[in-house]
């Protein structure tokens, strides 16, 4: 997939097959996944991932590709969801006949309409003004959703039934596995379309305006219009994601368009890496996993997510994808192998330190929240006494010894890294 990440190059010189390989791989992966994770929760998690992948990619059309920092992207996602669920109900009531699996189109259209309306005044500038307008519009919409009950259904939201309407080859999408394939199909189509959009003049100029809005005006493009086109497209795809949400959950509520959802999509895109096309995909997958798996094991998972987010912003602004792409130079020079040992050498103490920190937080949390006399807690299957001196010595030893050893190993890693990347790395992938 790294071909996709590159802001790639010249003409149609590359053979068609090579261009298509990652896409075929993507398709096969989508088809094969439910056979690997066939459990109920596995399917459910993957459905959620699919929806978030589209949503996060649509967000990145703004932030990563267009340089527009939005704090209100959930508006289009939510409105798309509400519109779709209303249409689901019209179909159920027999108001008109329409196949249920195409419902997300309505979500996309309402997203597009609102993209046009809001984009017409918000895309005049990028930067802080854009961010503030998006915040204001987001808050307005979220507050209105609780006031206008007829459309938004108040805090109960609006629910629908996806099993009505014309069926597709005898399937009524009652089962989760059917919905999985439906979402996978939509994911494949929309991801392809969004990638292709980034390769059109409008998409390329969005990058140019992000890099240098002024200069773009001196090659004939109005920065406002360039942003506007991206903004509308982004609203459209966010609306489709909302429509899929409506199909999957059969309910859409106020939280689909509130500030929390807007914040979540920013977080997903940023952790994944906004500078790369596949960054948001990685972010969406990772965040969904954190949300649905980590939260099963610990009450304080949001604390970990917060720490991860802040550390990413500080030290890895190019996101997780950026870290992976950083290795491409060494990979091409076939020197990646020389990094394995140094990574192991630093990885073990670093893991020990992280485990220590996590154990430290978890134990404090346990001491604070468990009921009186319950001092026994378990972490990763290890049971210990949260009030015991020995446990605390072990935890602190993990943190400090691990931290100390990690620090000591940093130097050798840096050396190994430099050796592996000599002659000086020419490319760092596309910018961030």
């Amino acid at each position, binding site marked *: 997939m790294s071909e996709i990440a590159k802001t790639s190059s010249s*003409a149609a010189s590359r053979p068609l097959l090579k261009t298509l390989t990652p896409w075929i791989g993507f398709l096969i992966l989508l088809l094969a996944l439910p056979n690997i994770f066939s459990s109920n929760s596995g399917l459910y998690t993957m459905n959620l991932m699919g929806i978030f992948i589209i949503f996060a990619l649509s967000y990145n059309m703004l932030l990563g590709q267009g340089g527009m920092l939005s704090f209100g992207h959930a508006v289009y996602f939510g409105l798309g969801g509400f519109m779709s669920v209303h249409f689901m109900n019209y179909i159920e009531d027999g108001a008109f006949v329409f196949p249920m699996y195409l419902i997300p189109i309505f979500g996309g259209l309402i997203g597009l309409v609102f993209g046009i309306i809001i984009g017409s005044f918000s895309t005049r500038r990028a930067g802080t003004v854009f961010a503030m307008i998006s915040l204001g519009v987001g808050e307005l919409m979220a507050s209105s959703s609780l006031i206008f009950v007829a459309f938004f259904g108040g805090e109960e939201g609006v629910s629908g039934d996806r099993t009505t309407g014309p069926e597709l080859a005898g399937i009524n999408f009652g089962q989760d596995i059917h919905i999985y394939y439906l979402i996978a199909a939509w994911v494949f189509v929309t991801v392809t379309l969004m990638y292709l959009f980034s390769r059109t003049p409008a998409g*390329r100029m969005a990058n140019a305006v992000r*890099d240098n809005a002024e200069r773009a005006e001196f090659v*004939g493009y109005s920065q406002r219009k360039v942003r506007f086109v991206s903004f509308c497209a982004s609203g459209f795809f966010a609306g489709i994601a909302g429509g899929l949400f409506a199909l999957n959950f059969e309910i859409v509520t106020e939280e689909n368009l509130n500030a929390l959802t807007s914040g979540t999509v920013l977080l997903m895109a940023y952790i994944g890496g906004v500078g790369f096309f596949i960054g948001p995909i990685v972010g969406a997958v990772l965040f969904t996993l954190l949300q649905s798996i980590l939260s099963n094991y610990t009450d304080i998972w949001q604390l970990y997510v917060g720490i991860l987010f802040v550390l990413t912003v500080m030290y890895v602004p190019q996101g997780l994808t950026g870290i992976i792409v950083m290795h491409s130079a060494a990979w091409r020079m076939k020197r990646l192998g020389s990094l394995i040992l140094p990574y192991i050498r630093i990885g073990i103490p670093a893991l020990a330190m992280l485990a220590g920190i996590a154990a430290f937080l978890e134990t404090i949390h346990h001491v604070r929240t468990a009921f009186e006399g319950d001092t026994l807690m378990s972490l990763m299957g290890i049971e210990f006494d949260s009030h015991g001196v020995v446990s605390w010595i072990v935890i602190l030893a993990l943190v400090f010894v691990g931290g100390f050893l990690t620090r000591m190993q940093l130097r050798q890693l840096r050396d190994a890294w430099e050796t592996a990347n000599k002659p000086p790395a020419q490319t760092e992938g596309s910018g961030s």
Partner: protein
Amino acid sequence: MTSAIELQDLRKSFGPTEIIRGVNLTIEEGERHAIIGPNGAGKSTLFHLISGRYNVSGGSVKLHGENISNLPPFEIYRKGLSRSFQVTNIFPNMSVFENVRCGLMWVKDYKYSFWHLVDRQRELNERTAEVIEEIGLTSRQHIPAGVLTYAEQRALEIGIAAAGGADVIMLDEPTAGMSHSETDQAIALIRKITVGKTLVMVEHDMGVVFDLADRISVLVYGEIIASDTPENIRNSKAVQEAYLGAEAEE
């Protein structure tokens, strides 16, 4: 025949300070015109007024006889005027190839299209490759523009400005900060890309000016004090006095 650029009593003030104080200037089509003058004379401001970066405070700018004062930059570009910048002004995170291609897309009539794939537009890409060949960056075309050397970025700057084939090209100090050999290359490049076109340039390096220009205008304190052929300017007492006097005052 109308002239390429015609400035009539052009004025620009920032607050109470008037920077451009009634400039009248006509640049004919096909002419290579240089604007010289001491620091702070308003040369860059004049460029910004013509290219639409600043709004004018008074007077008018005409391009091929059409009034373009206060049009946004992209409108002016679409009417056939392209420019480069004194401080390098490129798209740093995009590759050299893409930088140049951005300078071509509007002219090739793609506009805000989201149904063409840029990689499949053979003519666009071939033309881009040609321009890159001309500015001598073929071997560096896949590198992000932000990591080019200074001289390469200056060449790219000119390449973006010239790529679209605008018939009026304005270059703001194209050789600033270059070494001798680099300057020579730049002159050759400018000569090559402006064949049959109107060139307006601001330049400090008198060698470059006298080498390239057909006519020279001298801007001092926001006014044109002379506009003539290089020889006449070189020999003009008034210019020497005003210019040197101004220099001395700084």
